[in-house]
């Protein structure tokens, strides 16, 4: 019980935290563009969203590769 508040672990997790900054900004930019576009032209929402989901998937892939590597590389 004395070791309860001891901080230990791997620097990988800090690295993963840093690695999420890029995808985080990227996903935010994708959806910010969709919100802007929908506000300017509401009827284009369907077309915008379908492109946005693909873009979101590609950007999010970076964060996913990051978490995989954070656990895989010791």
């Amino acid at each position, binding site marked *: 019980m004395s070791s309860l508040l001891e901080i230990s672990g791997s620097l990988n997790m800090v690295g993963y935290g840093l690695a999420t900054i890029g995808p985080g900004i990227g996903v935010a930019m994708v959806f910010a563009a969709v919100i802007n576009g929908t506000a300017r032209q509401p009827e284009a929402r369907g077309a915008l969203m379908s492109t946005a*989901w*693909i873009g979101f*998937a590609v950007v999010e892939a970076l964060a996913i590769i990051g978490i995989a590597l954070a656990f895989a590389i010791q």
Partner: protein
Amino acid sequence: MGLLGLIIPMEGGEEGASHWPPGVDSFDPKPLFPGAGMDWLNTYLVQAVVAAIVVIGMWLWVARGQKVVPTYKQWLGEQLYNLIRNGIGRDALGPHYRKYTPYLLALFSFIVVNNLWGQFFLFMFPTISRVGYAYGLALLSWLLYNGVGIRKHGFGGYLKLMTMPKGVPPVLYLLIIPLEFVSNIIVRPITLALRLFANLFAGHLVVLVFVVGGSMLLEQSSYIYKAAGVASLVMSYPIFALEIFIGIIQAYIFTVLTAQYVAASLADEH
């Protein structure tokens, strides 16, 4: 372990084992009947089967006895059904969405129910935070979007559609074809699976940190630790609410992306 066994029944494990810090080990499979030689029959398998039964039973029950003036039950079912049929299927797939609605609906309901097991008092564990279940679901979607693409365009035509985007100068084919092949055929299902898995894995880990950490702090002698434990347990309620939200959002994203991939496979060259 004090409050621990009461709050997280499925995280028990053997007596006296340390649960701190929670990590990858917290997700180890637990056989339903330990020592019976049936280790494949673990709690996750039971959860997935129960989820399938719940989904099938729920939709059969909702679809029974439909009337022109809907009852409350039918209204609720139609709202859920329309969310998938119109919000995902018709938006992504265009006029040919009807054929794919059953798969999308089943996929969404199954993932939502499995994700909500993480907050359900009996199980307290999201099934898909075991990566195998996510790979299985992604494999189904992978077979679907490749299958319909090959059936519509033929094998060569489908590969051409997937790997040679229109308007690229032929000089760049050497670069583009492997890149597009890896991106569309290999990376898509992996990211589909890992996105779902990683969100639920991380979410359950955060819940463990708050609940297990909070109950361990309550057992310390100092009152400052006890106060921190109370704060941690109180904070676990917003975390649970966040996890419910994330579970539903991730099921939605998985279904939307499956529909988008099918739409991309069915797209005509133009």
